[in-house]
């Protein structure tokens, strides 16, 4: 709309925004108008973060909790990708499978992933299996949908050429459908990772007995607002790391495919 902004000015304004945010936060918590248990200042939270790196709270240090969250996340997410992507591709290729799975999928999709918590706990317990199912139900829909859309949008000429040359069905999927849908699949994997990570937090808040979510619930009961905020920061930070990792993989794959 207006012309492009000078980068230095942009940086300055951005810094103003951040300083304003932290300044306001520190001012409100330091003013004495609110109790420190209600809103601790940014420095209190930072100090608490350093403390939790070495001292244990709710059964472990922050890193121990993060590690058990990450293990659950990896299991649920990889399962969602391993089932969702192939199923999506097959649904894009075979109409009958699409007709069979779509009504089930559309029905289940409206159930918020978190609403699976009671059954997940009943079927797989609250330790590892239950949370994994919830992460799976969060990450699965985008994995499947994007693979499906990718496969549907493959130029039919490629498929016709492959069919005419007598390529077996399995090879059409691995050598035509899959490479052509990679950008869409990766986009789905990134969305799925975000939703899966968020579902993990929800699951841990409700049922788990380790993990960052559990740490936060315990901190809430103990009215340790700083610990709750450290948990929020850690969850946000790991979420960004996961996204950065997937972006790196995405860029690498794009380079290998020659920007196709």
């Amino acid at each position, binding site marked *: 709309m207006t012309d492009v902004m000078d980068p230095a000015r942009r940086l300055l304004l*951005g810094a103003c925004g951040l300083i304003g945010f932290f300044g306001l936060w520190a001012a409100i918590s330091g003013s004495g108008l609110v109790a420190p248990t*209600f809103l601790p200042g940014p420095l209190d939270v930072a100090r608490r973060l350093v403390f939790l790196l070495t001292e244990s709270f709710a059964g472990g240090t922050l890193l121990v909790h993060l590690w058990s969250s990450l293990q659950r996340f990896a299991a649920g997410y990889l399962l969602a990708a391993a089932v969702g992507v192939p199923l999506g591709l097959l649904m894009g290729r075979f109409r009958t499978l699409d*007709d069979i799975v779509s009504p089930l999928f559309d029905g*289940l999709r409206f159930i*918020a992933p*978190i609403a699976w918590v009671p059954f997940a706990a009943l079927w797989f317990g609250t330790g590892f299996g239950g949370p994994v199912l919830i992460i799976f139900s969060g990450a699965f829909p985008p994995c499947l949908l994007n693979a499906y859309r990718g496969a549907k949008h493959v130029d039919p000429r490629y498929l016709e050429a492959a069919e005419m040359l007598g390529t077996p069905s399995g090879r059409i999927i691995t050598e035509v459908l899959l490479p052509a849908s990679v950008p869409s699949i990766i986009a789905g994997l990134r969305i799925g990772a975000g939703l899966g990570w968020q579902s993990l937090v*929800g699951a841990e808040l409700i049922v788990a007995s380790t993990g960052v*979510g559990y740490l936060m619930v315990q901190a809430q009961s103990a009215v340790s607002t700083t610990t709750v905020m450290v948990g929020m920061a850690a969850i946000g930070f790991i979420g960004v790391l996961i996204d950065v990792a997937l972006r790196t993989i995405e860029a690498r794959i794009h380079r290998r495919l020659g920007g196709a």
Partner: protein
Amino acid sequence: MPLSRRSAVGVTTLAVVALAWVLLTGVSGLVSPGRFPTPADTWAAGIQAMMRGYGDATLVVHVLQSLKLVALGFLASIAVGVPLGLLMGWSKTAEAVLNPVFMLLRPIPPLAWIPLAILWLGLGDGAKILVIFFAAFVPSVINTQVGVKTIERPVIEAARMLGTPRWRFVREVLVPGASPMIFTGLRLSLQASWTTLVAAELVGALAGLGHMLNLAQQDLYPGMILVGMVCVAIFGALTTALLGAVERRALAWKRTRGGAA
């Protein structure tokens, strides 16, 4: 013909699933009723929830409670998020100042606000509305912002050249131009609202569908769990359909203008 074929297969699939449900849980007992309810259990739980109530209230009360929280949180986030998105899409300065703060807070998933919201506002409605607000806020801001940026430049220049007053410009150029993206954002916001509501009510509540699910889990009552899940799905779908109807009405001008939807 393809549509009828598709729906025929769809109906068959659902029938097969229903049959499998009856056979696995009720008739053969391969799946124990303690793990997944039989159709009869589910029916009985549904009737119980509707007539006598479960968790100190009837199903209608739980549903209304959940709908109320979703509506309040969602509307509050629109009321703040859409204007903020318009501002950030329009003014480069506002964007430069606010974007870093936004980027800092955005990676925190809405569900992670639940413990803080409880510390601030307790287990009542306020905490849940706050969390839903956080969840629905991000998609409405981002999509509105993108929507403003996709408005064609000549339209904006024409309006400026004609000296359109500020308010008319916002109302008649910015909002309509961004509205397709605004609605995309609202759909995402609504979805996020439901997820967050269920999670917040599972963590702690005195009424609502999540509260029902939580009790049913503690009571090891699979029939009631299923009733709760089905309700979440039905009302999630209904509110999404309602938003779709509003969208079609609001964007009717777009279709009449040439059908390029």
